């Protein structure tokens, strides 16, 4: 299974590296949000001692993960209709590896994107921690979240079997999850009913975990709480997607 995953992961990376510009284009939207939201809400949102841009950076990193990995299933559907998946399935390849390689590829891609955003905001003067250990820990949470959403997208792709509803679910998944979380505003700033939704939203835990390890004051307990939740989220969604893929045999 590991060797199959590695070979398929390499295949997807080779294809991505043939058109790296497309991966870079996905960075534009989060950066625009950073500029616009930073300028719009900076003066109104109370974020304690932090400046608003520092507060927002973890949220923007998580947004990049959401936008990057929630569409992974679309390319799976294209591979299915092009016959590439059948070509893999007629070979004695591990079925788990087919899903795992796609999810890993998507997660690694968003990892690279978030790293670039971190460098950009650091150059722009953000005071978030760039301590390598803190950055690696934050990227671990980001990777797990990427795995989780890519797995969800692939799982939905297999169940829905069509691109249109998948895109609809992708849209429904990304923006509401962002706004019903503490990605852009602190929970205290939200009405009570949104606070309740935010508590059940995995995005909130991912954002708070990354914020706890990248912005002062560093809160390792809060980080590990989010890390543990992301670990469970990633494994649960991955198991669900693999199970859905195994039932693909018509």
């Amino acid at each position: 299974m590991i060797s199959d995953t590695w070979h398929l992961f390499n295949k997807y990376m080779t294809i991505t590296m043939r058109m790296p510009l497309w991966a870079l284009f996905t960075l534009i939207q989060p950066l625009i949000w950073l500029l616009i939201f930073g300028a719009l809400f900076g003066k109104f949102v109370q974020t304690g001692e932090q400046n608003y841009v520092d507060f927002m950076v973890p949220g923007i990193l998580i947004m990049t993960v959401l936008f990057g990995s929630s569409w992974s299933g679309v390319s799976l559907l294209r591979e299915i209709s092009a016959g590439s998946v059948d070509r893999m399935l007629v070979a004695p390849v591990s079925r788990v590896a087919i899903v795992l390689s796609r999810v890993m590829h998507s997660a690694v891609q968003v990892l690279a994107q978030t790293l670039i955003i971190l460098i950009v905001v650091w150059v722009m003067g953000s005071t978030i921690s760039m301590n390598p250990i803190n950055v690696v820990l934050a990227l671990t949470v980001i990777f797990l979240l990427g795995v989780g959403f890519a797995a969800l997208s692939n799982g939905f792709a297999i169940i829905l079997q069509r691109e249109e509803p998948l895109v609809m679910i992708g849209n429904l998944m990304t923006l509401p999850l962002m706004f019903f979380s503490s990605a852009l505003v602190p929970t205290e700033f939200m009405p009570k009913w949104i606070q309740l939704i935010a508590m059940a939203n995995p995005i909130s835990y991912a954002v708070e975990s990354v914020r706890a390890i990248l912005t002062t004051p560093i809160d390792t307990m809060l980080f590990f709480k989010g890390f543990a939740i992301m670990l469970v989220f990633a494994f649960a969604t991955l198991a669900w997607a693999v199970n859905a893929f195994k039932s693909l045999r018509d």
Partner: protein
Amino acid sequence: MTKLAIEVSKLTKIFSQNNKAIDDLDLKISEGEILSLLGPNGAGKSTTIRVLSTLSGFDEGKVLVDGIDVDTDPETVRQTIGVVAQQTGVDYFMTGRENLMIQGRLYKMKKGDILARITELSKYFELEKSIDRLVSTYSGGMRRKLDIATALIHRPKILYLDEPTLGLDIHSRKLLWKYIEELNRKFGLTILLTTHYLEEADSLSNHVAIINEGKIQIIGTPEELKSSIHGDSVVVSFETAGEKEKAYAEQLKQDGIAKETVWEGNNLHLYVEDGASSIPQIMEQASQHGLQVTTLSLARPTLDDVFLKYTGTSMVDNGEEEVEEWWHQWAGKGGGGNWKEWNEDEDGSGDGQDWKGNEWVNSDGSSKDDAPDADASEWGGNEWVNSDGTTKVDFKETASPATEETSEKQADWKGNEWVNKDGDQKGDWGDSPDWEGNEWVNKEGKPKDDWDADSKSNKS
């Protein structure tokens, strides 16, 4: 006794309550033979291939591939088979070599073995020059060849080909037939192929199985199937197929003039002992019934007649629809009225379904117009390509019986160009919708015969 490569007994696959994709299907294929599954759309051909290749489950029956049960040991079956599905399945943004390499890896082959196999397969399929190019630059025929090479990377004993030549031009199709035939003859590969093309089934297969509504209707060698319809085939066409016409058909059968009658739209297919002597009786009966016969034709039975008898539809009809659709596509891209004649002339068969916007290119792929000053003698390796860059095979290699005469003629033409009646040189075919009065000229500008005349002489 020859060992069975594939043994299917009482296979049933139910998609929904009223939809049996495969219905109690029995099929035996001996080692080293080519069997074609011939059937209309929705007959169950592809579903059968999917079951046999472990891609699909089934509800009842038993399927043994190389003696291994596909239901209980699919992993071992996968090592034994190679599958070429209808969609190409190769990755367009990878090179031919990378596609073959990843497939070899998925079969757990060692890197050295895969590399040796790639060399072997690319040589066999004449892909050496393009093996390190992205597949997105390949022509349809090259992609198909790569597809088959990918399915053969792990040296399977059995090869499934699901409509392998669908969408290919006539020449690429015939070239693939050559490879398929050789794979069977030289390397002893057992091949199960599904096809829409009667000619393909007829020329390639040891046995043909006609499948309809999930059942094998009849199986035999192409000759056995054709001779199962004794005598001649007479097709009588009417403007409508009403009660009077139906009564007329019944009467012909009762009188013993026709052994069998099959309706296909407004066409009545009659199978008679001796066509020539039956025609007067057929016409006389028609006039007695007060019927006006639109057309009448007489022929020896073909596989299409066998197909019609067992499925109630004609394969030729499907082909005609494809041609019509194709011409519509072509019409939108421009072209002159002589195109069809040229097409008939080119492939010798007159159907020319897949050719659009062809032009001359020399052996290095540059178009003729790119090298107006090239010496005539350098134009040895000309090729046809269509408007999307699909390369046709070198003219000198055109060896199919239907095109031999034409090819010899065309191979003598070195340094030809298109010019219109005013002597202006033609550019890209697809961008010139208003070309009329085209002519062949050689590089000295000496005109060739009129296009129509040329076409006719070639056909003769």
